[in-house]
């Protein structure tokens, strides 16, 4: 592989990893700044999915010149796949537990359609 091509690939890879690290930093800032748990959840989900995918792409590109085996690319795919499957589940479970144990700061909530639905259901039950 020519020297120039490798340089270009390296720059692409490093920009990907840089973007991933920047997303991590934004997530850290969001953790400190947002007042309630659910808002923090949104910022936390960002480096876990998009940031990690960017970093994986960066690693893949960086490894092109030295790696001829499918092994490391397969591992990268597996990491990305597992992360994309597990992060939504974990986020959902944490959100659900937070909502059920009433740890939600209602001060930041403008409108809660779930609570409205529950109220409507309860009222319908009472009338029956």
């Amino acid at each position: 592989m020519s020297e120039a091509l490798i340089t270009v690939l390296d720059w692409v890879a490093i920009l990907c990893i840089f973007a991933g690290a920047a997303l991590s930093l934004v997530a850290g800032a969001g953790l400190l700044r947002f007042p309630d748990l659910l808002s923090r959840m949104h910022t936390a989900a960002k480096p876990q999915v998009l940031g990690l995918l960017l970093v994986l792409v960066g690693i893949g590109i960086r490894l092109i010149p030295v790696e001829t085996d499918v092994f490391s690319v397969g591992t990268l795919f597996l990491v990305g796949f597992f992360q994309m499957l597990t992060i939504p589940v974990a986020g959902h479970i944490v959100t659900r537990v937070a909502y059920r144990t009433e740890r939600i700061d209602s001060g930041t909530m403008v409108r809660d359609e779930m609570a409205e639905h529950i109220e409507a259901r309860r009222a319908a039950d009472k009338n029956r």
Partner: protein
Amino acid sequence: MSDPRQKRPLGLTALRRRLGKVQLPVALGMTLVWMLLFKGFQPRWESLGLLVLGFLVSVLIMLLFPLPPITPGLRFRPLHMIRLAAYVFREMALASIQVTIMTFRPEPVRNSMVAVPMRTESDLMMVFTAIATSIIPGTVIAEAERTERILYVHVLGADTEEAMEEGRRGVRKLEEGFVMALGTREDIAALRAGGVEKLGRGEKT
């Protein structure tokens, strides 16, 4: 379907019943993961042994922890799948920028919980939609109501009715994408009809 807690007679019949529950596609997928983990894709004799061993281990796992089968009705449409993937990735990037802006804006953030009624009957579509919604920053599933087919989505920064409607539209677009890419013909019909049917309840598509 039998209750997993009830006592089963140990013996050949029980084993055969368990074996009947082994789903071949899932076992093959697990074998693939096994091969990836153990560097199995090289032209050498050990790879064959790895393949057999991986398959045996995945069958054993499925014997020990049987799962209910995925309901049939996945129909793969590659073109729609590519379009959906492009949509999800673009949305992920855009939403990341949006959340970043929201993080560094001085005014306090305001959120809403939005109810999104699903238009299809399939559980699988609901799961896919929920996963994709949670992957995209700015929206996270708080509760999934299976009987009524409603997803409750927490939307970051939705402080007006328009913003809530925007979040709802995003989830519905994801659902549409998944049904078009993977759903059966009934799902697509339900998508079209359900959209019209629910118009009477005040939701706009």
